[in-house]
Structure formats: structure tokens, C-alpha cells
């Protein structure tokens, strides 16, 4: 129920997040209904009527212990359900050879692939603006940084969010299950162009990704040539990408 609230989840750890979301949704929802019904019932039952006198009581120790202990237990359980999920998502990094360097700047995302030699910082690196291509079924490691102010890389359908902080590189990961084209807005206020700062993440099923990579990543060390064929192998529902590969002119400035 109420899945229409959340956009469709297509990433692996999204299941855990959605499960916790719905668990808390039910706990808080039921609590709210109980409190609201009690509240309204008391307002009705104990409204002022002639001849009544209010009950003179200062409290009830058993009741107060009960409503201290019950929420505490529920919150302890929630804590111990949340912590392992958090450590799996943010504190561990699955083994993967797929690494993309992501740099945020006012008001674009730059995605850099290591090119044929598999190393960053070499002339055959390929950088794409506001456009990221990843394979499905494989953990994707991103090394996230920012060139000017703080941004936040948010992919709602991956349940992924991580701030990009200038001066440091933050490693994060996700694994996409379903091929498609997903919007990746900036979620942290970054200036007058914050709204509309977004990228598209194209998730390709295995062979499709290889095709895309062969056409776009394996070229010689001539970034201009790579720009000739932007994103041919996007899924059928994707519009031709308007993003262009850009030169990898700079290291992250410190």
C-alpha cells in the first residue's frame, strides 16, 4: 500500500530503504491513528457538561512507565534495524572494477571514465557532461567530488544520495537492476542555477553497456573524436542525449 508515494526503486539497496520506510510508515501511522482517536474521543467525552467535576488526579505511575517503555522498545528495535542497513549501504564497498569519477560544479555534473587503460588521470580519460552510463547487475563505485560549492548527487529511483564536497573525494556505490534512463538532480542548494541542475543516468543491460563502452570509451586519446558519437546505445525510451563529452582538462582543484 502507498507505493504510489515512492518512485519505483531500481537499485539493490533501495529494497532495504523502502522496507524500513514502510515499516516506519506503519508504526507511525498506527500510532497516529491511536493517538488521534484517543484525543478526539477525550475531547468529546470530557467536554464541559453541567454538574460534572473534573477528575482530580496527578498522574499514574504504571501508565507513565508503560508509555515510556513502549516507545523506547519500538525505537530500540528501529535503531537496530536501521544500523545494519546503514553500514551495508554507506560503510562498506562491494568489490567492483567499475569506477566512475563524478565531479559537481555550478551547475553541471561531470562523469569521467578511465578509458582504455583503466586508469584515471591519463590522456584517454573520457568525460561526459550531465550524462552517466552504467551497466546493470554490477556494483558501480563513484568517486564523488565538487569543484566549487557543495552539491548532492541524488538519484531518486536508486534511493541514492550523497553530498559532493569540495576539497574531498567521497566514495559511494549503487547497483542498478533495471535498464532505463533515470534522472539525477542536485539535492543541495548550490546557487541560482541549483534548480535544473541534473544529469541522466543511463543503465544498460550487460551487452548494451559493452556496445556503448566500445563506441564511446575505447577511442584513442583524442577527446574531440569521442564527441562524434554521443550515446548511441541508449535504451529505446531514451531521447538522444543532449550532453557532450568534455575535455578532462583539470584535476580537482584543491
Amino acid at each position, binding site marked *: 500500500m502507498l507505493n504510489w508515494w*515512492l518512485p519505483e526503486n531500481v537499485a539493490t539497496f533501495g529494497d532495504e530503504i523502502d522496507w*524500513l520506510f514502510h515499516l516506519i510508515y506503519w508504526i507511525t501511522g498506527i500510532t497516529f491513528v491511536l493517538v488521534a482517536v484517543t484525543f478526539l474521543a477525550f*475531547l468529546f467525552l470530557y467536554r464541559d457538561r453541567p454538574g460534572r467535576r473534573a477528575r482530580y488526579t*496527578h498522574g*499514574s505511575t504504571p501508565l507513565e512507565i508503560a508509555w515510556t517503555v513502549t516507545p523506547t522498545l519500538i525505537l530500540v528495535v528501529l535503531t537496530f534495524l536501521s544500523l545494519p542497513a*546503514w553500514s551495508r*549501504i554507506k560503510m562498506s564497498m562491494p568489490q567492483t572494477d567499475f569506477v566512475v569519477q563524478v565531479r559537481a560544479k555550478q551547475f553541471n555534473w561531470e562523469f569521467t571514465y578511465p578509458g582504455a587503460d583503466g586508469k584515471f588521470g591519463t590522456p584517454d580519460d573520457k568525460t561526459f557532461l550531465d550524462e552517466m552510463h552504467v551497466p546493470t547487475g554490477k556494483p558501480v563505485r563513484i568517486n564523488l567530488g565538487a569543484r566549487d560549492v557543495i552539491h548532492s548527487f541524488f538519484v531518486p529511483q536508486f534511493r541514492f*544520495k550523497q553530498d559532493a564536497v569540495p576539497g574531498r573525494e567521497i566514495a559511494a556505490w549503487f547497483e542498478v537492476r533495471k535498464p532505463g534512463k533515470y534522472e539525477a538532480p542536485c*539535492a543541495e*542548494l548550490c546557487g541560482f542555477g541549483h534548480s535544473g541542475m541534473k544529469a541522466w543516468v543511463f543503465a544498460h543491460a550487460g551487452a548494451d553497456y559493452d556496445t556503448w563502452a566500445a563506441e564511446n570509451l575505447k577511442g584513442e586519446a583524442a577527446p574531440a573524436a569521442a564527441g562524434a558519437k554521443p550515446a548511441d546505445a541508449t535504451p529505446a525510451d531514451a531521447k538522444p542525449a543532449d550532453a557532450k563529452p568534455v575535455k578532462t582538462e583539470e584535476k580537482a582543484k584543491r
Partner: protein
Amino acid sequence: MSATTVHGHAAHAEHEHHDLGFIRTYVFSTDHKMIAKQFLFMGLFMLIIGGALALVVRWQLAWPETPVPGLGMILTETGGVIEPSHYNMAFTMHATIMIFFVVMPILAGAFGNFLIPLQIGARDMAFPTLNMLSFWTTFPAALIMIAGFFVPGGHAAAGWTSYTPLSSVAQYTGVNWGQNLWCISLFVMGVGSMMGSINYITTIINMRAPGMSLFRMPLALWSLFITAILLLLALPVLTSAAAMLLFDRTLGTNWFNPSQGGEPLLWQHLFWYFGHPEVYILILPAMGIASEILPVFCRKPIFGYHAMAFSMIGIAFLSWIVYGHHMFVSGMNPMLGLTFTITTMIIAVPSAIKTFNWLGTLWGGRITFPPPMLFALGFVSMFVIGGLSGIFMASTPVDIYIQDTYFIVAHIHYVVFGGSIMGAFAAIYFWFPKMFGRMTNNALGHVHFWLTIVAFNVTFFPMHIIGVGGQMRRIYNPMQYEFLQHQQHWNVIMTVGALVLGFSQILFAINFLMSIASGKKAPANPWNANTLEWLAESPPPHLNWGPRIPTVYRGPYEYSSPEGPEDWLPQDRLVVASSS
């Protein structure tokens, strides 16, 4: 304690003169009641500005890039269309003004000043001159903040949180003196707030009337006492951070600028170390106010007085060690996320205790529904929603998704509007007779309440829905995102709600001003309440009490006590053969 206090009051009284002239009575007054009114009027005036900015934001979100009716007079070059830079400025200043110049001056400033001496049975604050200086520091701070709208480059536009380096390097926002004035204003405001909080703490500790032990204090006093302690400890952190930011911007220091070796996350740690206690500074007085009003209109004692006091103390302690939950995805070491999850979950417990105790207070009562009670009940019910939505954020994995979405905006508004502002309205309706010596209009108060609570929920509840749908906060135009376009109708509904909410406050303004001018004369104790302020005349004279100050014999909530035939028993009434 009591003997010295009485002596102190007597000595104090001799120095005062009743005929002080206009300036000393109405402008540079040292009378806590006049200073309270000054804070109240300032807060309500700033509420108009903050509210208007909110409507500008809402208009843009519902009908993006269309001219706002009437705004063409100010934004002549765009014909009333809000541009992204205006938009960023509007939500930044909406939050800044509402938090620092509306809620804090009204709850802590006005009601702290008004209630503390009256409820403890003192003639004035411990340091009346410092009290006056506190207002006359806060007021220029508000003027400096307003001045920021008129400088070239516009006002601060980096969010009320002013994350660095967006806020610390002028070229990133194009804002120059606006952000500087923002820093200066908060610095000055922080100094004023510290003066006030020292005064509150000293007064409550030293100047309580004979018999007024700590656990006979009304819960409003407990809340103001704890708020003052939080203010005293939290505001220096904000003022220091504001100074560091200003130095980065003007003197070439590099606390926060990574391109020069600074650390942007340092700002977030400083800001939220202040910022989370600040949230409780905003809500604790409203909790105290609700705890004060519910017993009066239920005609029964507050349920679990000690639990109410200790839960506020618990909140105050815990509020220092939860701030990291604002920074789960900031790049802070995720290991810290684990500890902050635990503390954040724990801080929900005292709030739950308070809610259940308010329900317990209703149980078996004899409830009447005048406007102050309606707003107090509105506070309780909206605070329940705001409290429960907080649990989503406490769970770190869920927070990854809802961080920086409208879910957060919904939560903060249920707590700060549904909580603090509802509490402020309850307090104004409740203590208006005591402050101004006149009653407010009952019918207008009812209409004001029902319009407010309905429009409030229409405005803010759908924010949960679009937030879970993924809409980010602080975006200028949701229609720029394909995944948000299907929920745009909610933005229209919310804006209609916000317009109704905004304009229904005109009823409050009419009621407030008309009642000051020509309301029915108020008796000393219109609500048959027990606490000491209702012993004084309405409005209380200079120095509050007649020749002798009241003596306290019992706790504040002895309603429907079997000791007497009436259903109230004031704190100062001596009942022979009583065992309380």
C-alpha cells in the same frame, strides 16, 4: 532563600519611580512587561515579512515563472516574475526571519519576559537594565536583517543554513553585502539573546517568591528556564560561526573555503551544533505553554508533572548529541551516523512521554474550548504529526532518501508552525487579558483557529507526499524535472492553502489590534487559573504586586482539588489544615 529575596525586592522597589515619562515607560523601559510587549510587537511585525516571503515562494512553486500579483511594484524589471536569485533569497530570508526574529522573540523574548517575574512572584527581572539592553540589541539586529533587502546584490541567498563555501565566497551566489549583513545581524541578535538568557536563568534561580520551590514552578517556567540554558550555551556557537563566516568573506580568512585549505564541513558542524538545540529552543516554550493552558481548560491537574519537567530536562541534554542527524549524507564519517542514529531515536522518547501526558490531562477533564485552548490543542495534535515524521529521518537508511526533500520541509513546519506558532497563538490568546488588560474577541478567535488549522494542514501535509515522491527542497521550478511533473497538482493545492493561511491571519491582526484599543475590560483572573500571574491586576502595575509579594503554598495545577468547593486553588491561598 525567601528572606533575602523579600528583602531584595523591597530594596529594589525603593529605587524605582512610578512616574517615568514617555521614553522610560514605552521606549527604553526596564519594566519586564513593557519589554515583553516590545518583543511581541517586533515578532508579529516580522511575522508579516516572513509570511509574505513564504507566499512568494509558494506562488513560484505552484505557478512557476508567472507574475505574482502586486510584486511587479517591487520587481519592476521582471514585471513581478520571480527569478531564481529572488527565489533563493525569499526562502533563505523566510526561514531566517521566522526562526530568529519571529519565533524566538515571541516565545522566548515576549513570553519569557512577561511570565518569568509574574509566575515566580518577583517584581521584575534580576537585571532590568540588561533586559532593556537585550531588546535594544535584538531590535537593531532585526533592522540590520531588513536592511539586507536593500543592498546591491540582494539579500543572503544561501539558505538559512548558509552552507559554506556557497555562503562564504561571494562569487558563488553573487550576493555581497546581503550575506555580510546576515552574519552581522545574527551576531548582534546572538549577543542580545545571551543577555536575555543570563537574565532569565538568574531570575528563576534567585528571585522566586517564598514557597516557590523548583517543583512548584509552572511548567511554562520550567520550559523557559531550560530554553534559557540552551540559549546561553547554543547562541555563542552561532555567533562565533557567523563571525568566522563574516571574516572569511571580508577579511580573507579561510575557515571554510576548501580552495584555500579551509573545511566546508566545519561550518555544518558548528551550525548544527547550535542548530539542533535551537530547534528545541523554538519548541520547548510552546510545550510549556500547552502544559500551562491544558490544565486550566480541563479543570484538572497536569498529568505527570514531574515526568513533564524531567522530560524537558532530558530533551535539553540530548539535544546536544543529536545534531549529526542533519549531516548523515554530508560526507561526515558514516561511522558517526551510527551514534547519531541511536541518540536521535532516544530523543523521541521524552517527546512521546509529553504527548501521552497531555492526553492524560484531557482524560476525565471538564473541557471548555475558548481560543487559547483550541490553539493549545492544535499545538498538541500538530506536534504529534511533526514528532512522528521525525522518526523517518532518525532511521539513517530512510534519511538517505528523504534528506533534502520536501519531507523535511513538512517535518520542520509541523514542528515550528504547528508547534511553535500554534503555541504562540495559544499564549497570546491566553495571556492577552493579563498583558493588555482587555479580553480578545471570542468569535474572531474561533474563526481564526479553524481557518488556521485547516489551511495549515492543506498547506503542509501534502509536503510529506511530494517529499516522498522525491521533490527536493529549495528548487525553483519542479517542472524542470520529469520525475516530479506528475505531482505538480499538489504544489497548486498547497499554495492555495498557504494563501488562505496567510490571509486568515488578518483576522488575528484585527482581533489583536481592536482588542487592545477597545476590548472588554479584563478581570484579574478571567480563566480562574491558579498560577501567580493571575493574582496581579490586569494589566499588572509597575513592580507587579502590591506592598507584599505572594507566598506560595502548593503546586500550580490544583484544579478540582477536594480541598475546596471551587474547582481551582491558587498557589498563594493558604488552606487551613491542608497537607499539601
